[in-house]
């Protein structure tokens, strides 16, 4: 009797409720996205909503199975499960079927399965097990190496399958590492270099230098509040700028504007670097150094991109960043997606009344772009509800993770949070044009059995772990 209580007694019903709410809303929107008058039975398995209903049914079985299996199973077999998934990823690379250019599917009859969706779960398990092991020391080179191997091996294999979106998800595990003690600067430098890389593609160097400089000055101002010093730095910079501009003007050098700004920043930066080093102004030193590094980095990226890369390589990056229209229409997708969402207005057009998504202007509308249907038919009320549900789930999961007494459980919990968050953030951002089109599904929402089950595994194994947390009291 007590065993039985342990199985379900301490389950976090809030998370389960949000899960089912999201799955249900997802299904309703898939139904709307592919609805047509000829097929309207919700059990019609030739249609996507019929199939999705089937997948949801299977998910319930998966959930029951997860709760029946003993909790020690996951810890004990973590590496075995990981190894198994890695082999499957290799097999799919060799014998898989290609869909939309990615060789990442198994096909059995009319059903397809995408192992990459389950690899996230396996990696989270292996990561939790390894970070929890006695011989792991964060900031130890050997440990970091194994850590990198665990994360990047599946990511690399998925990249080889030509499924860039799914491979990028593995970046999310840096949140876990950060929570577990990896120096925050790794996270910061990582984020900054990505942001700067994208900026250097989108903006010209003058704008970037001005942006970087002014944000450095701003941070410094907020931190130090020493107006005299700021005035001094700004003065030196302006003076250099004026001198360089004058030189350019009188000698008719006709250098582009960004070169003058860059040189002025560099010269005044060097002077200030010298100044702050001797005056022991740590923050000033770090900021100036970061500024110079940042500008050199963007300049290098810019140079490498324009001078060293071949045209087709440039195009690939531009397509990835959604800057050019690719043959399958990355830019086209975003425009259409925004029109669909925008046409929903505050309250939406109503269930099944969406026209942009119905008349097939949004591609992949039941998978990666399912959020469009939400936006069109349910309006701002619908989109904000879905977003708030996700945030609730994520914050709740953080809360659950933090209340774990076992390291393994906590790390696993953070893994679940990171993966779901990454998917959520990137998917929504790409649909509303804030991020390049990276084809990854919206968790629990998008059409697809593999994706639904993959997230179900992640979430419910964690909920199972959480439900037994009290066993660690003894």
């Amino acid at each position, binding site marked *: 009797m007590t065993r039985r209580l342990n199985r379900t007694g301490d389950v976090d019903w809030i998370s389960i409720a949000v899960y089912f709410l999201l799955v249900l809303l997802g299904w309703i929107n898939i139904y709307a996205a592919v609805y047509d008058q000829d097929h309207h039975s919700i059990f019609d398995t030739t249609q996507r909503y019929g199939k999705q209903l089937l997948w949801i049914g299977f998910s319930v079985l998966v959930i029951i199975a997860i709760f029946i299996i003993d909790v020690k199973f996951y810890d004990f077999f973590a590496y075995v499960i990981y190894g198994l998934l890695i082999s499957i990823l290799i097999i799919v690379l060799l014998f898989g079927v290609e869909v939309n250019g990615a060789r990442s599917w198994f096909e059995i009859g009319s059903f397809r399965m995408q192992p990459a969706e389950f690899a996230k779960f396996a990696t989270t398990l292996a990561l939790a097990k390894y970070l929890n092991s006695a011989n792991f020391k964060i900031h130890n080179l050997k440990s970091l190496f194994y850590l990198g191997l665990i994360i990047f091996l599946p990511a690399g294999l998925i990249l080889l399958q030509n499924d860039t979106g799914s491979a990028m998800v593995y970046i999310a595990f840096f949140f876990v590492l950060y*929570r577990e003690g990896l120096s925050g600067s790794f996270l910061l430098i990582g984020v900054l270099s990505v942001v700067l890389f994208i900026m250097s593609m989108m903006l010209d160097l003058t704008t970037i230098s001005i942006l970087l400089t002014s944000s450095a000055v701003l941070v410094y101002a907020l931190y130090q509040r020493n107006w005299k010093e700021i005035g001094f730095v700004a003065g030196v910079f302006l003076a250099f700028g004026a001198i360089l501009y004058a030189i350019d003007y009188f000698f008719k050098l006709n250098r582009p504007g960004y070169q003058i700004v860059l040189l002025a920043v560099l010269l005044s930066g060097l002077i200030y670097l010298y100044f702050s080093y001797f005056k022991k102004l740590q923050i000033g030193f770090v900021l100036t150094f970061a500024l110079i590094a940042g500008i050199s980095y963007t300049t290098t990226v810019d140079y490498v991109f324009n001078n060293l890369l071949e045209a087709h390589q440039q195009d690939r990056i531009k397509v990835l960043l959604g800057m050019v229209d690719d043959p399958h229409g990355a830019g086209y997708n975003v425009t259409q997606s925004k029109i669909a969402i925008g*046409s929903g207005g505050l309250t939406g057009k109503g269930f099944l*009344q969406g026209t942009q998504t119905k*008349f097939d202007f949004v591609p992949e509308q039941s998978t990666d772009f399912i959020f469009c249907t939400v936006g069109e038919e349910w309006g701002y009320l619908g989109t904000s509800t879905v977003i708030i549900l996700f*945030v609730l789930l994520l914050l709740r999961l*953080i809360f659950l993770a933090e209340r774990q007494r076992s390291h393994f459980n906590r790390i696993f919990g953070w893994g679940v949070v990171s993966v779901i968050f990454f998917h959520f953030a990137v998917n929504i951002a790409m649909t509303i044009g*804030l991020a390049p089109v990276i084809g990854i599904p919206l968790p629990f929402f998008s059409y697809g059995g593999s994706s639904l089950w993959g997230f179900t595994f992640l979430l419910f194994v964690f909920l199972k772990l959480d439900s037994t947390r009290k066993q660690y009291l003894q």
Partner: protein
Amino acid sequence: MNTLLDRRKYVIGAIIVVLTLIFLVKLFFIQVVNTRYKVSAEHNSQRHQIEYPARGLIYDRYNNLLVYNQAAYDLMIVPREVRTFDTLDFCNMLEISLQQVRDNINAAKKHSWYKPSIFLKQISAITYAKLQEKLFKFPGFFVQTRTLRKYPQSTAANVLGYVGEVDERITQRDNYYKSGDYTGISGIEKTYENDLRGRKGVTIYLVDVHNRKQGSFQEGKYDTVAVSGKDIMTTIDAELQAYGELLMRNKIGSITAIEPSTGEILCMVSSPSYDPNLLVGRVRGQNYRILSQDTLNPLFNRALMAQYPPGSTFKLANALIGMQEGVVHRNTSYSCSGPESRPIRCSHNHISPIALIGSIEQSCNSYYWKVFNSIISNPKYQNTEEGFQAWRSYFLNLGFGSPVGADLFNELGGNIPTVQFYDKYYKKGGWRPMTIRSLSIGQGEILVTPIQLANFTATIANRGFYIKPHIVKQVDNLALDSQFERKESHIDSSAFELVVEGMGRVFDGDHGTARWYRLPEIPMCGKTGTAENPHGDDHSIFIAFAPRENPQIAVSVVVENAGFGSTWAVPIASLMIEKYINRTVERKGIEDRMTSGNLISKK
């Protein structure tokens, strides 16, 4: 330490919350604030209809139309908009099978699920009219108007070139082109593609569920207007071109004529040729296959791409160089023992010794061996290599050794051998004028194209310079004259006068090889040549210009496997000159003999 790490959960939590706020604000702007995305419920689907501009027309030098456009209709499909439709009616109307419908739909789906692709190319105007009425019954289909090239005169196929669908290589290199677009593939269509193509426009329509246009999207804010291609006036004389094609019927070879004072190409006949209308529309693929498999290679523009040893026509160049180098004068005479001559036999008996003018008229091999030897062995040069180098650079100045045209498609350059070549072939220092003596009479490693020969003739007609040969006179009514470079031969005009006198004797002299084809009212100058052909009968070559003073036309004629020059090449050149200058041909007998001559079956 632990408490510090515990604080990180707030950092991550904060990141999540901040991003969420960004999403909520952005969505608020897209959905509530911004009205740009509001599209009314009925006018929901957009259709991007490409407006293809009319391709520029092509005229001949007298404003006769050579190429125009005819409307054609492509049936387009957007796979995702296709709903169940009456396939029987559809198949009957288009006269295609059900299987073909399925295949074409699948092919379109493969290209794109939601962008238009071509379902059926170039349906007839009648089918189009029938289809237009019923189009609303077939959602997902619409008709795109395109134009096809038409050639009213059916001539100059290789000059004009043809238009075809772009391949992946082109779409990747130039993003103006999208799959399914047309582009010039050869000839003028290719070289002047950027002028001829114009600029595509796009109109975005809203269409309703029944595939009916409902008006433009956002008042046409995103539409662009198609700009027609520019019309081109070529330098071709269509009548002369057609006449040349007639004369070359059943013969392999080419006729190239240039107006010496301008470098304008008057005609460029390559034979056998084909009717340019064969490479248009739905029949293009099939016809192209047939033409490209033809052993006589009608797609090969012989005027620009065939390379022959120039034979005796090169003696003129050697004479010019000899005079400029000061080793030959009007009165320089050499003896010749006819077929017994050494080291090169002379092909026929003539009075000996012979002087410069006579040597041209009689085409004496011995004479030119001696001229060649004295150019290269000139004591002012240290050695054979240096002498040869000087000789070679004259030829480059005369437009040989590399493509000579300004705007010609796929022109080849011929070959003037280099010092390095002989150094490699005979070892350095291992060769003498004697070793390479066949160059003196235009045989050996030397290769020229018919256009280079015509240009050389124009240079002689001009007494010392040429304008780079070109095929287009005006683009969009703007003359291109100033774009074409004048090139100097760096040989004195007095030398040219002597050569012209010799060439005149070829027609007027008692022993001239072209004496049967002189025309009293038009003084002509010419020179025969025979290109040795190891694979069969020699090729007959003739170059000529007329009139002798103020020349209007310079022409080179090559007839393959025709043996000695005077039987075929000379009369053809003479008739071409008569046709161009008099606009009509009186010598019907010669004309008949030429048009009925069949040298292809002989081979």
